[in-house]
């Protein structure tokens, strides 16, 4: 039943995404602009680590895409509450967990698709990275979106208005992006900033994807990245499930 319901909800929201093709492409615009107008600035700079500057920047942009996109996913649930769609579904026997999973799996699909577009553009710009590393990068994008979208939907279920939702999300997203070294590696940072960034889980993800992009699949960074991503996903989906189970009934 969970599978049946999840597939049903997934299909409903995926069709919703496909109906707004513009939004689907628009999501890649910000990271694409970084790629075009910020990426070239880095090519001659000593960023530390191995590989080219593209192997440092693109992993960061991928996670930035997931971070910003997924954090705002819950916005739609506020609109749907207003339309009565959420309650109308909740009076049916549909699995509460499926109402969450179908949505977040749709988001993971959309953001991985956007990530593919971004990598293709990066290849044109000069990125060279091993295929396995690139695929690992997509897996991290998927986990990141699953977890952040779960939290975002949970918040969307809790708050009443978009006005309460936006500021809260902004408060999380900007510091997360800056403190996890998505744009430039934190190894360039002064010690205090580097230490601080270790408290931001996304730091471990971006370090892992950067390693993957230079073919380092068994490094300590990779281990920490996998642990952080899987742990954070488990936590977030559990938290999201609790909210979807208990809101209302």
């Amino acid at each position, binding site marked *: 039943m969970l599978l*049946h319901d999840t597939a049903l909800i997934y299909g409903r929201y995926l069709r*919703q995404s496909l109906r707004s093709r513009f939004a689907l492409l628009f999501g890649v615009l910000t990271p694409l602009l970084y790629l075009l107008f910020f990426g070239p600035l880095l090519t001659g700079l000593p960023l530390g680590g191995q590989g080219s500057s593209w192997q440092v920047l693109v992993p960061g942009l991928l996670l930035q895409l997931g971070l910003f996109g997924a954090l705002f996913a819950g916005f739609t649930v506020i609109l749907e509450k207003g339309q*009565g*769609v959420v*309650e109308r579904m*909740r009076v049916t026997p549909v699995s509460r967990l499926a109402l969450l999973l179908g949505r977040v799996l749709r988001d993971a699909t959309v953001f991985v698709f956007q990530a593919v577009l971004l990598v293709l553009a990066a290849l044109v710009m000069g990125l060279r990275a091993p295929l396995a590393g690139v695929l690992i990068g997509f897996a991290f994008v998927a986990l990141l979106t699953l977890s952040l979208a779960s939290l975002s939907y949970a918040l969307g279920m809790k708050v009443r208005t978009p006005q309460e939702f936006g500021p809260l999300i902004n408060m999380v997203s900007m510091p997360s992006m800056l403190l996890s070294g998505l744009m430039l590696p934190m190894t360039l940072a002064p010690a205090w900033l580097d230490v601080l960034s270790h408290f931001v889980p996304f730091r471990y993800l971006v370090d892992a994807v950067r390693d993957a992009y230079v073919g380092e699949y068994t490094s300590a960074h990779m281990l920490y990245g996998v642990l952080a991503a899987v742990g954070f996903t488990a936590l977030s989906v559990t938290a999201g499930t609790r909210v979807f189970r208990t809101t209302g009934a």
Partner: protein
Amino acid sequence: MAAVISTAGLARTFQTKAGPVDAVRGIDLTVREGEILGFLGPNGAGKTTTLRMLTTLLKPTGGAATVAGHDLAADPAGVRRASGYVAQSGGVDPQITVREELVTQGRLYRLPKTEAVARAGELARELDLTDLLDRRTGALSGGQRRRLDIAMALTHRPKVLFLDEPTTGLDPGSRADLWDLVRRLRDEHGTTVVLTTHYLDEADALADRLVIVDRGTVAAEGAPGALKLTYGGSIDASLQDTFLAVTGRGPAPADSAPVAV
């Protein structure tokens, strides 16, 4: 006849920033199988809150209830399978077509794909939506949308149907159609219908029995005639006067904007 809904001390208090709001203070209710129950009361009396509890959308903060033999707290899934609900503000996505919404609803009630498609066609015929199947729900008129909301709630042929102000905004013809539909559901399928309304003529014409709630409790209940006799002074009293006598204040004008919840 057996009771299909019974509640005892059903209550709900909302915690808000401005302090607790006792929306429903303890409602005792018995609805017999096949009955059409008119659930009346002024704005803010607690009608919607009560229906949301009885449909498992909202956890009661006090009391207990059973719907179609299923305990609200212990077996919410059973309650959901047995009941249909049309919310005061509807519940369809404006971007999605009527057909897709109806089919999805069938699938949410776990009908196999082909059955869900067939049921959607059946419901569309029954509620005169056939020509609108490929239209986006956002492009429907208010009355057409209300018919869709009701079709959605009938998908699984529920034993109990909760309708929250189903005829608000409908033209007289559509209202009469809806009354016919409600009577037909009861006569042909034995469906129990609980409906809220601010149109007292509607309650008078349609309901077997009325429950008038005020400030979260049942203020009066009985057949329309009996209520008129007791509170209005004579069997010929208007339901309007009876309502005023029970609640001590005027009913809301029928066209006032419903309070969103």
